[in-house]
């Protein structure tokens, strides 16, 4: 019964993965004028000397660290607010799913319009707060462009993170809090002694899961800046080398090496994630 699933996954996922690994030892392009040449580990050596790859690596790390940290902290705060006994809780939770449901490519376009340097509402808003000078092209300035991209990712994912944490919050037995109140624990103590320790497994899993996602970020960067002004991430650079240059240069082997590098980086986190779920596999 499990055979069809394994078959599809093997042909479409594992076979291309091995092919990528194999291809990474050659120099060739998709255009037949480039002859296939065995180059051994040269493509991998080249990685360490490629400033664009190293920048992409750095950008990916910055993006991942900042966005995941913000999403976790804000997500926790929102979850605590929404966990309070408030009216319309169901409706609020539903509204929080909206940013998650909108395709990233489309919400990136929405935000690109809001960040428009002349007519964008966000630009006006940031000008009014004196955070930026009037007429600043937010998506055209190094640093700012990355901040904007992170903002979009945080917008999209934080409510989702909050919902996951909320699910964890609802599993904490109320008696624990009552007992703590009787013992005279204040709100801060209750949060740090009960809520946070009880939420640790939920947060840990959500954190690794989000990290995996952030490390392979593509859509938001591609749509908002195409990877210009210091925002190119590994996936964006990888796609550029593989596809944009596929027929015009012998870069397919090198692109495959980048793919393998990304795979290795993400695998480390994936292994941690699977290990933390191990118990449930029975």
């Amino acid at each position, binding site marked *: 019964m499990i055979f069809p*699933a*394994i078959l599809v*996954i093997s042909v479409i996922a594992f076979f291309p993965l091995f092919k990528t690994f194999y291809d990474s030892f050659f120099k060739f392009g*998709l255009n037949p004028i480039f002859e296939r040449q065995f180059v051994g580990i040269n493509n991998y050596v080249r990685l360490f000397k490629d400033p664009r790859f190293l920048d992409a690596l750095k950008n990916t790390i910055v993006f991942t660290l900042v966005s995941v940290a913000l999403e976790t902290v804000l997500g926790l705060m929102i979850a605590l607010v929404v966990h309070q006994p408030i009216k319309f809780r169901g409706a609020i939770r539903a509204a929080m799913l909206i940013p998650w*449901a909108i395709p990233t*490519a489309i919400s990136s*376009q929405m935000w690109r319009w*809001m960040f428009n340097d002349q007519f964008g509402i966000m630009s006006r808003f940031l000008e009014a707060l004196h955070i930026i000078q009037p007429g600043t092209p937010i998506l055209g300035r190094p640093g700012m462009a990355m901040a904007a991209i992170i903002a979009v990712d945080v917008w999209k994912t934080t409510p989702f993170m909050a919902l996951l944490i909320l699910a964890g919050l609802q599993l904490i037995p109320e008696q624990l809090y009552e007992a703590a109140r009787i013992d005279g624990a204040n709100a801060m103590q209750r949060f740090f002694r009960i809520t946070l320790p009880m939420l640790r497994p939920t947060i840990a899993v959500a954190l690794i899961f989000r990290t995996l996602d952030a490390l392979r970020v593509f*859509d938001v960067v591609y749509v908002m800046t195409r990877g210009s002004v210091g925002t190119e991430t590994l996936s964006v650079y990888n796609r550029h080398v593989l*596809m944009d240059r596929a027929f015009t240069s012998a870069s397919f082997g090198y692109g495959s090496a980048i793919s393998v590098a990304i795979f290795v980086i993400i695998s480390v986190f994936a292994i941690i994630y699977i290990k933390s779920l191990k118990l449930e596999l029975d």
Partner: protein
Amino acid sequence: MSISTRKILKNVILYTLVAFILIWCIFPFYWAVISSLKPDKDLFEVNPRLIPARVTFENYIKVFTERPFHQNIWNSIVVAGSTTLLSLAIGSLAAYAIARLKFKGKVLVMTLILAVSMFPQVSILGALFVLLRNMKLINTYPGLIVPYITLTLPLTTWILQNFFRELPKEVEESAAIDGCSRLRTLWSIVLPMAAPGLVATGLLTFIAAWNEFLFALTFMQRPEMYTVPVAIALFKGRSQYEIPWGQIMAAAVIVTTPLVILVLAFQKKIIAGLSAGSVKG
């Protein structure tokens, strides 16, 4: 401060925070709606109005008359719809086996399936492109549906096996005693009982396939074959310098409104499915 003023103060802070959260979540969507309804003259105003002074549906008409957007929507429906149905069919078989049968290498199979869900898509992009090109599947529906099934299958299987586990075992056992085959049990007993779970899983799969960008961008290279996210991301104006923002926003609203309605209608199921899929394990 008396207890009642403290309580009022607490409520004021609480509802202010809730208001912030709601505005934050909804505003970009609201702004897309507003922008899509403004005539160009009002859209390109230095101080944009929060409520449009004039409303026009011009952008909505242009999206369908000046470009093949209806074709793009149809592509997305075909691709995401087929992906969902096939993924549910293959996934429920696998999920049932994992939830109920004992077999060798179960942990290995589960680990493999999980591993695929964590694949960086870009890592197989190049090789998959060559594979699909050799099979002449670039710019065809199957060329996108098959890779999508692979992407969604881990999620579908994982969530479904969670739902299957929660079903009472006794009914299936008595069916087995009555001589009902495994497949038959799955089809006429397990699946009907798990119907709400199937709906939730199907919805998540559909949204995942509808939203996918990287494969769609790479494997569909003709504008009339673009899926919706790609079409909207690559919207071009008449000249290089002109970006048709009004139309982009109209297109964005057209395709996100059904998603938003679906999410609002099924939010409980979606949250259940999501937490089954990622956090609970």
